[in-house]
């Protein structure tokens, strides 16, 4: 039996897509690049110390004194080591990829919760996205969007969106049938039922998904740097390829600090909201 020419099929598919949808890919590229640049500009606008003060105030408003201390010390270290601009561009990349994942992932999760067919289609795709090695789709991403930050964002979204979709779906499906029945019995429209009952009750689960998504985005920054995304990941990559162990550690430490701060911030946003309610 002859070998299935899967590889050549995929090659021609990618080539065909690159030709046919180039306008579409360019538009996406333009938008994503714009968003990333916008965030980088905003983050670089204040002096690093002012930025750290702003972050500290935010952390304090979330009601966490240890987090405030950690944020201040952590970012001071980053500034001191000289990775400030790289960290800010990484933060922009992560936030852009995170936002895209939320904007796409939450509605997809809701759809999957409502429709059995949708969930039968979406879930295997998610499995595929999560287990396929990232390098494999990094290359087509480069083909479509050329080198730079955009394929990095796209690859991050592909890698990081599954938890948001899965946990949104789970959160909505976990809302007890009696409550949705009550919402129906009082004459809610589907929109009212979703926004007044299902989503608020799914919120803790949904937020756990978003938290996971952001963490996964961050874990992609080194890989994204291989296709030209600037930032702290690129520093790590350069240090490792040049066998600069100390420098690699410094850059890696900056990633860890950023990761912990992002994790705690996203975890606490919802908790504070709940306390305030």
């Amino acid at each position, binding site marked *: 039996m002859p070998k299935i020419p899967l590889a050549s099929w995929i090659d021609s598919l990618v080539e065909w897509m690159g030709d046919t949808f180039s306008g579409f890919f360019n538009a996406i590229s333009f938008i994503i690049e714009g968003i990333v640049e916008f965030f980088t500009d905003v983050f670089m606008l204040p002096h690093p110390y002012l930025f750290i003060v702003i972050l500290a105030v935010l952390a304090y408003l979330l009601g966490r004194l240890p987090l405030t201390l950690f944020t201040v010390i952590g970012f001071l270290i980053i500034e001191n080591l000289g990775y400030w601009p790289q960290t800010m561009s990484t933060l922009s990349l992560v936030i852009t990829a995170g936002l895209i994942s939320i904007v796409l992932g939450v509605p997809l999760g809701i759809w999957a919760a409502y429709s059995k067919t949708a969930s039968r289609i979406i879930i295997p795709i998610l499995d595929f996205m999560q287990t396929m090695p990232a390098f494999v789709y990094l290359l087509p991403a480069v083909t479509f969007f050329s080198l730079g930050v955009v394929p990095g964002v796209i690859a991050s979204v592909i890698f990081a969106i599954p938890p948001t979709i899965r946990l949104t779906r789970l959160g909505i499906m976990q809302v007890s049938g009696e409550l949705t*029945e*009550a919402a129906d*019995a*009082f004459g*809610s*429209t589907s929109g009212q039922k979703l926004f*007044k009952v299902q989503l608020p009750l799914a919120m803790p689960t949904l937020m756990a998904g978003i938290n996971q998504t952001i963490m996964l985005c961050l874990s992609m920054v080194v890989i994204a740097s291989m296709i030209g995304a600037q930032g702290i990941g690129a520093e790590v990559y350069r240090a490792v390829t040049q066998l600069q162990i100390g420098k690699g550690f410094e850059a890696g430490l900056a990633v860890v600090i950023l990761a912990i701060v992002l994790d705690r911030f996203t975890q606490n946003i919802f908790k504070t909201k709940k306390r305030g309610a």
Partner: protein
Amino acid sequence: MAILQVKNVSKLFGPGAEQGLQLLEQGWSKARIAKEKNITVGVNRVSFDIQEGEIFVIMGLSGSGKSTLVRLLNRLIEPTSGEILIHGKDLRKMNKEQLREVRRKTISMVFQKFALFPHRTVLDNVEYGLEIQKVNKSKRREAAMKALELVGLKGWEDKMPDELSGGMQQRVGLARALANDPEILLMDEAFSALDPLIRRDMQDELIELQDKMKKTIVFITHDLDEALRIGDRIALMKDGAVVQIGTPEEILTQPANDYVERFVEDVDLSKVLTASHVMRRPEAITLDRGPRVALELMRERGISNLFVIDRAKKLLGVITAEEASDAMKNHRKLEDILITDGPRVGPDTLLNELFEITSMSKVPLAVVDDNGRLMGVIVRGAVLGALAGESKNEGVTQDA
């Protein structure tokens, strides 16, 4: 006209429900359809009318289809066949929007496990029905506060549902349903999750509320005592079909078949039947007659005491034969021998309470209405007779 009419309504679950319906018509049993066709008969060709302002109880054991039936009434579950008319309009023919309008304005529901929204305060829960109708904030707040006051939860409006006890949570559920000011309340085992003492209180309060607000209530329960306590009429269900519809007394005294009879055989009649069920026509005279007339009347009827009323039939007291003959000898008037502190009860007093009163009193027990007018007399023999399951025992006299 009845506010809610259910005509030949069925609900079958599973693929081929339509075919199952035909098999039901051909006389197949629920069990056979389930076994051979894998179709579950939830509700089997049920018909009844519910009048405005009545408490209509649908009762049956678990699996009898009562919870499915109540959900057909607001189409939380789609009926397979039949008609459900609200004010003569067929619920099944309504589009989504019309149905939503009915659920918002006409029918509210109270749930077994309360189904309060845990992320909303008590007040926000009660406001929910009005909020989704986009009623403005101050107006819906006012309606919600009124509903909360009605169920006795004033001052609790800012609590979260999980801070309240079960009984209080269900009051919130009730307030939420009342805030819409619906004409019909569907109560699905509303008190079943509460402990017995609280349940009793809630039943009493529901009856009181219903007196005040004149809502039409469809109450689902598996508890016969509850059904008998609060129901104006009861529909007894078995295997998805209604076995008998009637007043509590009819269900108890004229069970339609063996199933109903077995169902009600353990009922403590003394907690169901009331004074009006067992009272006799009272013998009475007006005060302006003398002792001689009174004595004559007693001798004629073979009784030893007599009620005295005024011209408006208002009960003044009771006289005994002994005192009357004494009065006749000493030329005293009826007023002088009138016993005015004899026991009297309302027509809704339960038999078990009558028991104690009749056994402690020397004079017969009078049944009077709200205006103090004499309605009847309770005779101990009749109370016993009723408890023994006899219908009206004409042989018993007024003698206590």
